[in-house]
């Protein structure tokens, strides 16, 4: 099975910067791995850590959150408030013995199609190395 296994990564992208950045990557025909499933959110500040854990529980091998760069938030400070939450999520998962690479946070602006592709490439590569998410995923077969 592992030979056929491809990581599935859930990506929460903010509407104003990162989603546009991903769009730009597409329009510019920049190649990046097809492993991500995008959920558009109004702002990275909308992300409740519960979303990330729920993604992992439901079988995502990794979760990526991307918002506007600090200082560029459409809502002035949504990403800055989110940054604190993200720091804690990352630390908590690491502490609990869950690979911290399973959840990743980044900033991508609307003009950074290349950066978006590079980030996805990096995240996919890291998760590929970790293998399937087994710790938090819920088995529906038991």
């Amino acid at each position: 099975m592992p030979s056929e296994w491809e990581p599935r990564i859930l990506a929460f992208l903010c509407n104003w910067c990162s989603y546009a950045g991903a769009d730009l990557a597409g329009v510019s025909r920049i190649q990046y791995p097809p492993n991500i499933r995008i959920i558009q959110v109004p702002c990275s500040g909308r992300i409740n850590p519960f979303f990330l854990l729920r993604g992992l529980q439901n079988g995502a091998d990794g979760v990526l959150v991307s918002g506007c760069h600090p200082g560029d938030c459409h809502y002035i400070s949504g990403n800055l408030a989110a940054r604190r939450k993200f720091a804690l999520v990352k630390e908590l998962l690491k502490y609990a013995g869950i690979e911290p690479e399973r959840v990743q946070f980044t900033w991508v602006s609307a003009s950074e199609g290349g950066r978006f592709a590079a980030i996805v490439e990096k995240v996919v590569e890291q998760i590929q190395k970790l293998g399937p998410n087994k710790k938090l995923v819920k088995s529906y077969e038991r």
Partner: protein
Amino acid sequence: MSDSQQIETRLRETAEKLLREKKVSLFLGYEKATLPFRTSPLFLSKPEEVERLAWNPFCTTNLSVYLPRLFKAPVDARAAKAAPPPPTVGVALKGCDIRSVVALLQERQVRRENLVLVGIACPGMVDRRKAEKALGDHQALGAGEDGRGNIRVVVDDGTEITLRREDVVADACLECRSPAPTINDIMIGTPVEGKKTETARLRTAEFESRPLEARWAGFQEVFSRCIRCNACRQACPMCYCQTCIFDQNRPRWIGAGTDLSDVAIYHLVRALHLAGRCTECGACERACPMGIDVRLLGRKMCAEVEDLYGYRPGEAIDATPVLSSFAMDDPQDFVTEP
């Protein structure tokens, strides 16, 4: 007369005066429970009943857990209109408890003008499980305090056993850095100086020093005993949500069973929701019927919040809660770069 007895006398006088002068309509304190090493919360509204008030080494309950309920307006608008005005409440609070009240005030869950905060000096409260364990095969029939603050226990064969207080106080008390109720309207007893105790940090550091897989094994070992009863949540003063996400059933987000995945998410989400809000009173772990180290994750969150943002919950009523604020230069070394 032990310190506790003196405090008890003062507490009764204070409550009696507050009730008699109608400064408060309700006084929250403790009364003797039927079993040793315990007290039960007391909702007192008659000044002539203050003799029921007790103060002893077993006043563990964080009474602030009752405050949001007393001030919560009914959701239904018509019921809200018909509801009686919020009560004025006097409440006996230890250092940790008062920190919870501060956090609740920060989050606008209680009304300062309706509260009379009676701070009480606390040398650490007894964890009944530790005390019971310390007695071995003996059953306690009664327990009290000796002149030096140690715990005197009458056991089933009629003999008396003395337990050293520091051997049987709750973990949260051993870890306590702020035993003094800093914010109060009335102070009873001489506040104990806060020790700059590193106990919680050391416990966290020990767990953190294990390799990743050993931490996961440790996490599972601790939480696989969880029976999903919700006692930790219900005992927590900061868990006042109208409907907790784990109770929502339209749809139900998380399974109510003991699948490790559901249990893990419950405790992870709870730790995150309490990050920057938990005042480390330890009510959750004392309530846990399975004796789980419920605060395993919470201790880590408290340390992180303090290290990253220099914030300790429950310090100042006018402080903005840490996760509702930010600084431009907050650390972001965790951010993924290409």
